[in-house]
């Protein structure tokens, strides 16, 4: 068992399931409102797709006030104005900071290749920073950001959301306590059906708005979809690949684009184990999920849900009698339920199936908790750099058609 990751309290689950004292206190992750214990004023940099998602989640925090937001696109500013009641919109981060020197924190949701300057400017202005993932599009930019973050003395969180996800935290505790024993294979996929185009009625704005399809700056599917998953698997296993291979093509959207809409990658670890990762913009089957297959079981993760599939010869634990189960063709999965002990004690175990909020919510909540209560940042700039560096290597393998070796030095901020 990993010393810093104690096993889930299975005995408590067993006792509760057998008729332990009931309480009406809901688990923390189901609580109506998060309690930060401090009023925070935040500004949002970039109100495109991800910025809009942030706006929706920010509205759930009683003690967090969005004072201002900025974007270089006028139409997006107009759109944000109706979603961000009471907040002021600005065309630049500079003007926003000048008008609101009292901001405690900035949320950076600009295009990936435009993270560096907003992060540095925000840190220079002594703001706490939540920077969306991937951290940047080049290792040089990642290092510039981590350098600025380390010397600023402010909270800096990279937006790799798996680390803040209660279901993932529970699954990780199972994996690290040996529930699936030796990991023999890793797999992850991110499937969606979407052209990845951003509307632009102004040809002059086309290139800027469709940066994900610009091979000069885009990390493609490995960066924009894969990096989150690479980080999850690194977090679970504490392993980083030493070599990556990738191939891809434009198969779904033959509109002249150069950025592959379908990608397969193989990431090889030092012990010989591998992660098979694939992503496509042409099919939604099974969506986004990660698999960790071990000699005694498999953990399947799907962001708001998670399951444990046991091998037949895996030892049976007493708490399994009370577990919630779900059938997938020939396999039966035990639903991973965060705070199962509390729920079981109330006879409400099924209420905990699936999370009540999207992953982004938990990422933001943990960031605000770090500012307000000084709790440890779930994904530092340095951790963010490592997952991003892997994505950069996968994209390089894809772009060049040649395998890429990953050295320790590629994963450090120096």
């Amino acid at each position: 068992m990993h010393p810093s990751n104690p096993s889930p309290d299975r005995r408590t689950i067993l006792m509760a399931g057998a008729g332990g004292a009931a309480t009406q206190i809901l688990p923390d992750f189901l609580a109506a409102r998060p309690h930060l214990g401090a009023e925070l004023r935040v500004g949002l940099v970039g109100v495109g797709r991800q910025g809009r998602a942030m706006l929706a989640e920010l509205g759930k925090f009683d003690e967090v006030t969005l004072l201002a937001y900025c974007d270089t696109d006028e139409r997006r500013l107009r759109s944000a104005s109706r979603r961000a009641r009471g907040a002021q919109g600005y065309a630049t981060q500079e003007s926003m900071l000048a008008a609101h020197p009292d901001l405690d924190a900035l949320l950076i949701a600009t295009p990936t290749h435009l993270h560096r300057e907003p992060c540095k400017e925000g840190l220079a202005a002594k703001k706490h920073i939540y920077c969306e993932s991937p951290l940047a599009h080049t290792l040089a930019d990642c290092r510039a950001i981590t350098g600025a973050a380390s010397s600023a003395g402010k909270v800096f969180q990279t937006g790799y959301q798996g680390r803040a996800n209660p279901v993932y935290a529970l699954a990780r505790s199972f994996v690290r306590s040996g529930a699936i024993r030796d990991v023999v294979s890793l797999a992850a996929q991110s499937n969606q059906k979407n052209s990845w185009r951003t509307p632009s009625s102004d040809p002059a704005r086309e290139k800027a708005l469709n940066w994900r399809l610009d091979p000069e700056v885009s990390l493609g599917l490995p960066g924009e979809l894969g990096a989150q998953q690479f980080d999850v698997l690194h977090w679970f296993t504490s392993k980083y690949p030493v070599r990556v291979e990738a191939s891809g093509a434009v198969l779904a959207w033959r509109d002249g684009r150069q950025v592959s809409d379908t990608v397969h990658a193989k990431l090889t670890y030092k012990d010989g184990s591998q992660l098979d990762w694939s992503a496509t913009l042409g099919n939604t089957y099974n969506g986004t999920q990660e698999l960790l297959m071990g000699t005694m079981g498999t953990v399947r993760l799907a962001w708001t849900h998670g399951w444990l599939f046991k091998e037949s010869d895996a030892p049976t634990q007493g708490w399994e009698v009370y577990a919630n189960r779900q059938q997938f063709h020939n396999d039966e999965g035990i639903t991973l339920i965060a705070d199962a002990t509390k729920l079981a004690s109330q006879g409400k175990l099924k209420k905990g199936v699936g999370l009540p909020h999207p992953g982004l919510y938990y990422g933001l909540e943990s960031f605000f908790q770090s500012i307000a209560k000084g709790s440890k940042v779930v994904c530092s700039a340095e951790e963010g750099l490592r997952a991003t560096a892997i994505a950069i290597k996968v994209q390089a393998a894809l772009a060049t058609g040649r395998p890429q070796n990953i050295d320790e030095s590629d994963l450090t901020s120096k």
Partner: protein
Amino acid sequence: MPLRLACQAMGTRFELVLTGQHEDQLRAVGELALEEIQIAHRRWNAFASDSVVAHLARCAGGPEVKVDPETFELLHLCVEVAKKSHGFFNPLLGPLLRQLGLRDDRPEETTTPLTTLIDVKGISLDPDSSSVGLARPGMELDLGGIAKGAALDLAARVLIEEGVTCALMHGGTSTALALDPPPGRDAWQVVIGTGEHAPQALLANTALSVSAAHSRHGSPIESSSETGQEQQGHDPTEHHSRDHHSHILDPHQACGTRHLLAAAVVGPSAAACDAWSTALVAGCRPTHVPASHSLLTQPSPDSWLLSPGRPNCFRIEPCIPATPPPTAAPF
């Protein structure tokens, strides 16, 4: 050539028909609108544990929950229509649906009487904090069709913001929203039901919702269509009624309604149209529906009635003069 895009959400299929010159641009805007529908699904789907309404149900009986502005607006509309319809529209019918065997999930164990659990007065709305509360444990929102309508309203807003002006959208074919009609036409023609004399709704920058009392499998609201004409029909993927129960409930009688066979409402908001068409079939009097809405009701299989004194967005052949329906509501 119109561009069609679709997605699955809220247990049904949403479809967009967009017209314009640049397909790549249209597709990009359409995908943004579909994203909006998916976001609405994640918030308002009572069957998904990570939805806002599921969270509100879990927190029922506790403190109010802060919600996003769009959810707040939708719940505000729910309460408003519930009041104006004298309770014939009710967004809290989940426990009743379960009691009637129309929902598969197990009921929450509670000693609270059913009438209290479905009392709309138990919904509290605080506009200052954008917070919503359900007064008692066991209360839960089941937004049903109004959520589909609201999703279409939000999707339309995205289309307009992004400069797409000519479009027709529907959610599960029971609720539709039209922007400008196709070139050369005055309106999008939407056929309601089947048969030679099936009525048509003429939509231009308006929404339509059709509710039917009987089982979806026997729905009369189907038709064929061609470019510029869309269908209203049953959606086999939706949760449907069983046995003799209507899939629309009369909240006052706590059972399936027998007031009208169907009702169609045209108005500016798809969410409001959906709420009002449901209320009408449940037993609400047409006079309680805001005068800006166009109403068409079906009291018997062979007759459709236009409500007088309102804008007429329907074409019926042969035209039937409006008379009070034979099974008028008790108000």
